[in-house]
Every structure is written in structure tokens, then in C-alpha cells.
């Protein structure tokens, strides 16, 4: 659904995005992470037909963004960082304006559908300036969906929202994903990215890493098993097991790195018991996406 090849954008001497190549399949929720100024918004603008790339190419929903940017804009929906609503106009008039710009055949049906879906129907005649931040964000999402786009670009959709409003928006994004829409999600919220995204890409001017959250963690840290013992283990012999990559001891706790815990845990535990270990708990060490993100960004800085 989205293919970018060596996409580059310069502003004067400054390179905002450099040689970005990626492919996103239909129905995928792709998380785009990176520090402030990393080029996330510029990438979205290029893919949505708002900014022309300095070099490289991109195909979005089967349309070349350089050759037919206006056509691309009819096929994608965008939720920018700021909702950008007309505060003096009502929710209805905000959506009606956009429905007319997209020349929708049945604007009233579409407006009603999304206002009801997002719980704003009762407030449709109120000026948007009287809405809470969460309501404005929901209205901006409704605006982005009004023309039923195949691809949706969401830039920080839950930024600045209270936890309840953020959860509502996240649930709605998950619902959109279940409708097989392709979602390109820029976020600083790593919990959100982990919850919603099938794959994530880390950018800092150029693409640093791309992959599913679980595979990125595995790639970076391997898989670690935490074993809590009743007593510290005093080994009379070294437990040589070919599948163990490393062992760390911390008092009554063992941290063992394995390639395939599902396959090798039974043999590992059997061996430890034979060596006299009194095992209380066995669990997999969970790494957060935040750790992955911070380590990769730190690595990039070095």
C-alpha cells in the first residue's frame, strides 16, 4: 500500500529525510518513531502528497506521489499534530466543509456516520471552540476519515490527551486497523506503538531500524529467562549447554540468554535441578519498546 524508495527531502542545506526506503502492506499499522526533528512529519507530508521529495520516489495506494500528488490526497487521510479545526464553526460545518472539498456524493450520511461513531452527534451544532481537547481530536479523526481513505496518516493522535480520551482514540485506531485500513502512525508514545503496531520503523533523518516490536527486541537483546531460586546456587561443575548464550547471576536470581526458550527451557531446567537448584519461578525477561528505542537512538548518536 505504501512503497518508498530512497526518499530524500532537503530544506536548503539541511537534510530532513535521507534515503528512506520502506514498504507497508495493506491493512498494516505501521509505527513511525523518532526524536523531535527526526523527519517524521516531513516523511508523512511527502507520502501524503503535501511536500515533493527532493529525490527518490513513493507510491501510495498505487499512485505516484510525485507525478499525481492531488490524486494521492484524495486517497489518504491525515491527522496532523494539531487538530487544525475551525473553532468558530460547529462540528457539523467543519465536517461539511471538508466533505464538500472531497466532493463526497452523500456528505450528510458520512458526517452523521462519523459524528455518531465518535460520540459527537449530540454536540454537532456547537462551535468547536467549546469542545474539550479529546473531542477536538476525535473530530479531527472524523475529518480524516470522512472520504473513507485507504491510507491514514496519524501524527501523534493521543498527544496531550488525558488517559481516558487517549484510550478512546487508541481503541478507535485498533478498530480502524480491524477494517483493513493501512495506518501510518507517528508517535512518541512507545506503549501505544507496542499496543497498536504490527511493525515499527525508527527514524533519525534516515531509517535506523524496521521490524515488528518483538523481533526488534529479540534482535537487540536476544531472549532472556529469569529464574528465581530458593537458595543461591553453588555449582560444583560448569553447566555447559550449547544453547545457552550467556548466564548472569544476581544473588538468588539467574538471568540466562537463550535463542529459543520454548525449545530449550525443559532441558535447561532439568539440568539446573540436577545441579541442585531449587527453582521457585521461571519467566521470560520482558524488555519494553522504550528500552529498544532509547538504545537504538543512543547507538545512532555514537
Amino acid at each position: 500500500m505504501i512503497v518508498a524508495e530512497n526518499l530524500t527531502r532537503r530544506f536548503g542545506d539541511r537534510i530532513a529525510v535521507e534515503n528512506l526506503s520502506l514498504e507497508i502492506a495493506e491493512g498494516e499499522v505501521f509505527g513511525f518513531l523518532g526524536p523531535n526533528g527526526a523527519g517524521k512529519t516531513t516523511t508523512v507530508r511527502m507520502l501524503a502528497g503535501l511536500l515533493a521529495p527532493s529525490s527518490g520516489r513513493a507510491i501510495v495506494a498505487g499512485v505516484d506521489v510525485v507525478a499525481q500528488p492531488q490524486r494521492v490526497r484524495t486517497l489518504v487521510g491525515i491527522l496532523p499534530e494539531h487538530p487544525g479545526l475551525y473553532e468558530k464553526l460547529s462540528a457539523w460545518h467543519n465536517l461539511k466543509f471538508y466533505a464538500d472539498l472531497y466532493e463526497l456524493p452523500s456528505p450528510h450520511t458520512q458526517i452523521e456516520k462519523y459524528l455518531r461513531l465518535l460520540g459527537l452527534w449530540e454536540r454537532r451544532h456547537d462551535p468547536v471552540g467549546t469542545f474539550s481537547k479529546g473531542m477536538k481530536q476525535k473530530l479531527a479523526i472524523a475529518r480524516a476519515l470522512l472520504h473513507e481513505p485507504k491510507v491514514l496518516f496519524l501524527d501523534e493522535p493521543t498527544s496531550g490527551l488525558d488517559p481516558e480520551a487517549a484510550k478512546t482514540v487508541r481503541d478507535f485506531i485498533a478498530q480502524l486497523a480491524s477494517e483493513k485500513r493501512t495506518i501510518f502512525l507517528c508517535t512518541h508514545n512507545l506503549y501505544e506503538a507496542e499496543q497498536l503496531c504490527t511493525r515499527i520503523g525508527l527514524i533519525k533523518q534516515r531509517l535506523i531500524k524496521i521490524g515488528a516490536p518483538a523481533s526488534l527486541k529479540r534482535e537487540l537483546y536476544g531472549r532472556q529467562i529469569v529464574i528465581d531460586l530458593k537458595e543461591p546456587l553453588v555449582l560444583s561443575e560448569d553447566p555447559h549447554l550449547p544453547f545457552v548464550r550467556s548466564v548472569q547471576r544476581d544473588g538468588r536470581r539467574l538471568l540466562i540468554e537463550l535463542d529459543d526458550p520454548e525449545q530449550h527451557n525443559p532441558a535447561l531446567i532439568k539440568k539446573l535441578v540436577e545441579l541442585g537448584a531449587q527453582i521457585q519461578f521461571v519467566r521470560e525477561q520482558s524488555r519494553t519498546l522504550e528500552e529498544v528505542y532509547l538504545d537504538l537512538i543512543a547507538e545512532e548518536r555514537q
Partner: protein
Amino acid sequence: MKRTWVVMRKEWREAFRGGKTIWIGTIAIPLILLGASLFQLFSLSDLHAVSPEELPQVVGVLFLVPLLYFMMFPLVIPHQIAIYAIMSEKEQKSLEPLLATPLRTSELFLAKMLASVLPALLITWAAFALFLAVIQALLPANVLEIAWQQFGSLWLMALGLFAPLAATFMTLASMAIATRVSDLRTAQLFSSFAMLPILLSMFFLVFRQMLGRPALLGGLCAALLVLDVGLLWVNVKLFHREEILTRWR
């Protein structure tokens, strides 16, 4: 063209909910100028008492200043709407979602321009029609005929040529200024400065009693045409999608 109309409708709906300054600029000031024009006619001389021989001379004096007032309409009215059309988009950060639609920047520019120029012209012409109707209704029947003989070509030139050129000038100047400043009051201030040279030229012509010369008014129109072409060029440069997204702050 359909999307241009959609944006224009939005501009008007938004502008007239935008507060007092829009209402003052588009309705209150024109009403004051219209009132001043009529006051000029009815207070300075009792035309019912003027002899038929003297009437052409008196009409010639009395109708000159109202012409100045009507020439101020197309300068005053578009000023606030044009600033608001740009500043409100900037303040509400609504340009990015707007530019993400199939709307072309040429359509956006045309909509913003016409949303200011059209009301300015319609209000100017409507006010002038009202002015003529009041004269016809309340003054001796031949006053309008005499005034038309003396000022007909000048009125046509002022309302048919000067008014569109002046409204376009004020709109384009205000839009260009609004794209480059980040604050509404600064935009209003600089935009008012843009109006000054035209106003001063008009006052100069009135006080030197030269406004009644079509050739001089034609010269003013020619100067405005040159300025309009220059400002159009500037605005076309400013209304590029990338320029709007990255430079309009």
C-alpha cells in the same frame, strides 16, 4: 471552481463569526461613510431653494466629496476580511489539513481573494445605489439628472474601474502581509499603512479640486493596476503548498 466556492462560503461563515472588527470594517464603516455622504448633501445647502440657473454649479460642488467617500469603500472593506482569511488559518493551524485535501493552491488563493473583493464591491455598489435612491426620493427631480450629466462618467470610472482595482489592491496587500506576520494586530497595522498612499492621493486630488478630472482618476487607476499586477505576482509566489507549510508561521 466548485472548491473555490466551497472555501469562499467557509470564509464568509467564519469571518462573520469572527468578532466585532469584521462587522465594523464591512458594515459599520460603510454605513458611516454613506451617512456622511448624505449629510454632505442635505446639510450644506438646501437644493430645493437653489435657482435652476445656479443648480448645476451647486451640484458640481456638493457631489464631489461623496465621490471621495465612495472611493474609500473598496479600500476599507476588504482589509479586515483578507487579513482574517489568512491569520485565522495560521492561528488555528488549519492549513495542513486543508492542504491535505484535493484543493489546489490556486483555488485556495482565488477563494481567499474573492472572499474579500466580492463583498467589498457588492457593498460599495449597493451603498451607491442607496445613495442615488435617496437623492431621487428626497431632492428635486432634476438634481440627479444634473449630477449624472456632470459626474456620470466619473461615477462609472470610480465604481466600475477604481473600485475593483482598489479592492484587489487592498486584498492582495493584506494577504501578503498576513502571510508574513504572526500576529493579527501587526497584520492590521501594516495593512493600514498599505492603504495610506492611495488615500493620500485621493485626498490630494480632492483638496486640489482635481478629483473631478477623469484623466487624473484614470492615472490613479493605472497606478493601481500596476500595483495589483505586482502584488498578484508576490501572492502567487507565497501561495505555494511548500511555502505555506514551511514558511507561514
